[in-house]
């Protein structure tokens, strides 16, 4: 998994690409520490370049959501397609996150 972070004042957009799986835990912690802070209001995770996600990575997104919620940061999952979109639907993530096409 690779990612880039773009900051726009109190909003942050993260673009993830490649595969996001259980072995990406260290990068996930790095991503979380780089984005979730007291100055942020909203975080968009752009999934358009992500090709594969597994259950462990879905769990990491939930942990990210928990951490963000504690700081009143709103998370949006954007532009998911293919396998990613299917996994978000199967996991009923629309009940947990803002989902944008």
């Amino acid at each position, binding site marked *: 998994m690779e990612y880039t972070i773009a900051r726009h004042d109190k909003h942050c957009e993260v673009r993830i690409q490649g*595969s996001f*799986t*259980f*072995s990406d*835990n*260290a990068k996930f*912690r790095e991503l*979380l520490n780089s984005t979730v802070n007291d100055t942020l209001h909203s975080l968009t995770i752009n999934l358009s370049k992500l090709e*594969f996600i*597994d*259950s*462990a990575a*879905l*769990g*990491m997104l*939930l*942990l990210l959501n*928990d*951490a963000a919620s504690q700081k009143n940061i709103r998370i949006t999952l954007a532009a998911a397609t*293919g*396998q990613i979109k*299917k*996994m978000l639907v*199967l*996991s*009923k993530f629309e*009940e*947990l996150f803002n989902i944008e096409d």
Partner: protein
Amino acid sequence: MAYRLPLTSFIQSTPNLAPPPREVVYFTAGCITEIGKLFQHPTCTTFCELSDGLHISSVDYASDFVLCMSTETAYESNLSEIITRYAAQQVPLSDTAAINLRTALHEAITNAIIWGNLGIRTIVDSLESMETFYQHINARLGSEIYKSLPVTIKLRFQKHGFNVSVSDVGKGFQKNPGNAKPKSLFSPAGRGLQLIEACTHSMHHSDQGRTLNMQISYT
């Protein structure tokens, strides 16, 4: 660079189902038997040891196959993508079927590694427990015993779909797959079997929970 050895070399070097050497791929022609009988299977024609990555397509073979490797190699390899790409070369596979095969395989292999062979029991429900979870995994992967335990994947091409099985040598999964759901929608763990269930036509455990058998449609 891949190279081949005759199957007899493997039998002689690994009697009594000892854990296989690292990075081993072998294939059977025709009927796939139980792993315990595989080494004596008369139609098992190819034994291939790959020392530089796993490239199934480099082996000129188009049939059912068995792929067996150490837990360490399985952990480090992108097996589900490799196998799905190989399968798509053998049969017409819809995008949905490719997604289902790769997802189900990935989750099953991960379960075989983590919960099966490495025997991890830590439940991830927070960032702190996630750290502990991965510390346990790394500790077990540092053990010669744990990292050498075999993971076996069988893929059989049927008329309308695949029969896939993933086996480990751990203590065995006891939970009923029909109840395979996370504790709650917000639970970060326990989602793997639920995804497998959604991506397969059917699934069931055998060998006292050490083997997960899945049927996946081509369409």
